[in-house]
């Protein structure tokens, strides 16, 4: 049982981040805090991709005589990390759009609290 927790601590970390992000999205009333929750949710998935591709004592996938090519444990797969560069860029773009919308909302309603906003829209 202990093994189940300690052996997968990287995954537990991402699961906790995922829950924190979802909590922020669902239950926070302030729209800025919702956006932060969204960002945490995205980062948790980035962390997941990074952790599945990490390896100890491995090197870049360039063929070297010191590392026999048959032994895959010698080589890191760079693809998940590379994909996450794109995912991070997507996350930054999302945050940019989100904050732009928040500025527009604040200019129109003078509040970022969801409850007050809903009252003002009605």
């Amino acid at each position: 049982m202990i093994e189940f927790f300690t052996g997968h601590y990287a995954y537990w970390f991402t699961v906790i981040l995922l829950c924190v992000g979802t909590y922020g999205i669902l239950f926070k009333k302030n729209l800025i805090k919702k956006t932060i929750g969204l960002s945490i949710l995205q980062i948790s998935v980035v962390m997941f991709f990074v952790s599945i591709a990490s390896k100890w004592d491995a090197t870049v996938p360039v063929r070297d005589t010191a590392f026999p090519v048959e032994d895959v444990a010698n080589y890191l797969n760079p693809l998940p990390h590379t994909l996450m560069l794109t995912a991070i860029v997507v996350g930054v773009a999302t945050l940019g759009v989100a904050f732009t919308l928040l500025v527009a909302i604040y200019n129109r309603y003078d509040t970022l609290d969801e409850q007050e906003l809903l009252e003002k829209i009605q």
Partner: protein
Amino acid sequence: MIDSHLPAIIALTFLLFSVLIPLFGLWKEKLCHPLAVLGAGIAAAYSIYGFITYLDTGAIRYFFGGWEAPIGIEFVYDGLSAFFAMVINTVAFIVLIYALKPARTELEGKEMPYYSIIMLMMFGFNGMVMTGDLFNLYVFLEIASLTGYALIAIGSKPAPYAAFRYLIIGTAGGTLYLLGVGFLYTVTGTLNIIDMTAMLPMVAENTAVVASLILMVIGIGVKAAIFPMHGWLPDSYTYTATPTSVLIAPIGTKVAAYILFRVFLYLFGIELVDAVVPLSYLLGLFACAGILYGSIMAIAQNEMKRMLAYSSISQIGYIIMGLSLANPWGFAGALLHVLNHAVMKACLFMIAGNIRMQEGHSDISRFDDGYRKKYPWTMASLSVAAISMIGLPPLAGFFSKWYLALGTVDNENWLFLAVILISSLLNAVYFFRMLEKVYMKDPNKPDEKTLEVAEYNEVSGSMLSPTILLAISMFVIGLANVAIVSVLLGIAPF
């Protein structure tokens, strides 16, 4: 030479024009609209040509930079992609012709960025439809979504808040999809759809596969507005500007439905989907709930755009139901409904836009019998579109429901058949309410003079002709349904 490059040309046309529009728009703003129409026209022509080419020669796999898949990135242009690309590009072309006047009045001075963002969004949609790689699908999904949020935020006063809510829920959905892709990548080691299809049966017992399927369905279900995840849709469609709602309503949810088709029927295959839990049946139940909920909520609305938005939730349910039936009739019915609903919803939102343009509102309770004299053509199109939505032959809407019903009978799924019939009745309630106000004399006002004082006040030709064109195409699609369905049965993966 062109044939083998077709997929890339269709998608990159939009990317090219999204750059060209700001370049020419800064010089002369009047050039933006013709350029946007030109770009969409080129893409539409290529995708119609591409669909015909596909029927002749079969699927095209386009490798970017000559790097063959699984190493490189590819666009796969098979039957499903070709069909969806043809539908969305043709509808976008017609909608962009329509957009000239409403964009000029509602978005004074913002036309240049507006058309540029539309082109970028269409690039994202086309990329989603044609890509052969799950991670690229995520990237195109986010391109289309981010531009979609931006477009929805332009509109009436509450529009930014509607767009923000869509952004939160849509990005969370996209992130869950990405997590699902991560699970699949860990068990198969590839992101290429064709490659993964070959590998999945070997790892079918792995629980990560089921988890990833559920995550992907939830993530994409948000974009497709499947029943419990539809909350963002009514506000977004209602508060946004007319050209945006006319463009996004017929296209946006369809492309998300495409991903579900791709994942369910092509990537996993229906046996693998149903291996652990009867997921396709569950999805069908959600679709049924969505059909009934959307129809009932639509009856309760007074605002035409809002009513149409709820009706969209109901109509996407038909498409998902056809998918969940997983038999050739359901497949053909669902794809025919993709085409029909794109045409019908675009036409209905155009009619709402026409009324808004002339009257300043689209409140159904304020419709009166003078409208049939003021807007004869718009109201004629409304009748055609409404009857088609309800599903009376020989209009297009009847035939997709007919094939879906055949699919339910094939599966002996009487619950779904009952839902189709009940929702047709509910559709009749909310569409005949409008027609009644326009074409019947109001018995409560016996001395009503509205009809006498009403004068011909139809919208200009650039808005009227696309509306009428779509109304006529409903007849054409309805009469040509046998030919269309025989083609669609040919591309079914069963």
